[in-house]
């Protein structure tokens, strides 16, 4: 099962519609379960909900074979954590999907590091969905302690 998740703040009709069309054209064999947020486009070819409570979301993510998502950090982090192959399509300001183009930057960066696949527009989607089948994401090892230490040092210097 492929889990399509678009985040909670805005709908992402461009991606949802493209997925629907890809299924219709026979490009996706697996079942797709979609969380479409406050999107207006209603999928015809996949089971969908607007939102999921955290428990159900986590369960769906754990059970899926691959994730297709907007390039939101929340979904990227959660997929990486569970080592799920993830294909992202960044939201773009020019389509009214997001306030700025930071998702394009995020997508590019994480693609460079081997953590995600990226379809920058709907034309790239079918090819990238094919690649998703054999994509093995590189594990990410964040240096959280560095940030904690920097802040803790500052607090210690400023409290006497």
């Amino acid at each position, binding site marked *: 099962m492929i889990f399509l998740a678009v985040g909670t703040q805005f709908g992402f009709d461009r991606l949802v519609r493209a997925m629907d069309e890809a299924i219709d054209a026979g490009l996706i064999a697996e079942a797709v379960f979609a969380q479409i947020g406050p999107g207006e486009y209603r999928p015809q070819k996949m089971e969908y909900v607007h939102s999921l409570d955290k428990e159900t979301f986590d369960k769906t993510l754990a059970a899926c074979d691959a994730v297709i998502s907007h390039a*939101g950090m929340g979904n990227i982090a959660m997929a990486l954590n569970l080592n799920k192959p993830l294909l992202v399509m960044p939201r773009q300001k020019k389509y009214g999907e997001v306030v700025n183009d*930071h998702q394009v*930057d995020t997508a*590019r960066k994480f693609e460079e590091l081997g953590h995600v696949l990226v379809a920058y527009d709907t034309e790239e989607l079918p090819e990238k969905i094919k690649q998703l089948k054999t994509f093995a994401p590189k594990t990410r090892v964040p240096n*959280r302690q560095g940030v*904690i230490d*920097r*802040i803790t040092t500052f607090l210690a210097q*400023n409290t*006497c």
Partner: protein
Amino acid sequence: MKSLKICLVASAGGHLSQLLSLVPVWEGHQVVCVSTGLMVQEKLQAIGTTYIVGECNRQQPVKTLGVMVKCLKIVWNERPSVVLSTGAAAGFLVCFWGKLFGAKVIWVDSIANAEKLSMSGRMIRPFADVILSQWPDVAAKYPKVEYAGELI
């Protein structure tokens, strides 16, 4: 080290989950939390007094004004010694008011900003006491911005 009153502020979602990965930072200090959505209220109330100010972004000037007033009231009442934020707009607003009322400001730009500092980050940079980017090449672009690691 004496106990400080630290105000943690982040928009619900990715910004907040990044902020909450910094738990050891506020151990032993008094904590006040500010976020933007009711769905995180319960989680934050387990950490400290919690205020939910609602969502706003740069495309909604009236909403932002409302949130700005709420943030001012919170800072006025709580007078934190430190404000720690990972963004976004509400994070900037609490940091801004906090600084005006004498707080130290620590800004950790969200990991999502992989090429340049967020707009809020750029706006708070003159006022921040510590400002971090989670990408070394982004930190290198701006005076004062440091790279110390990453949260995701």
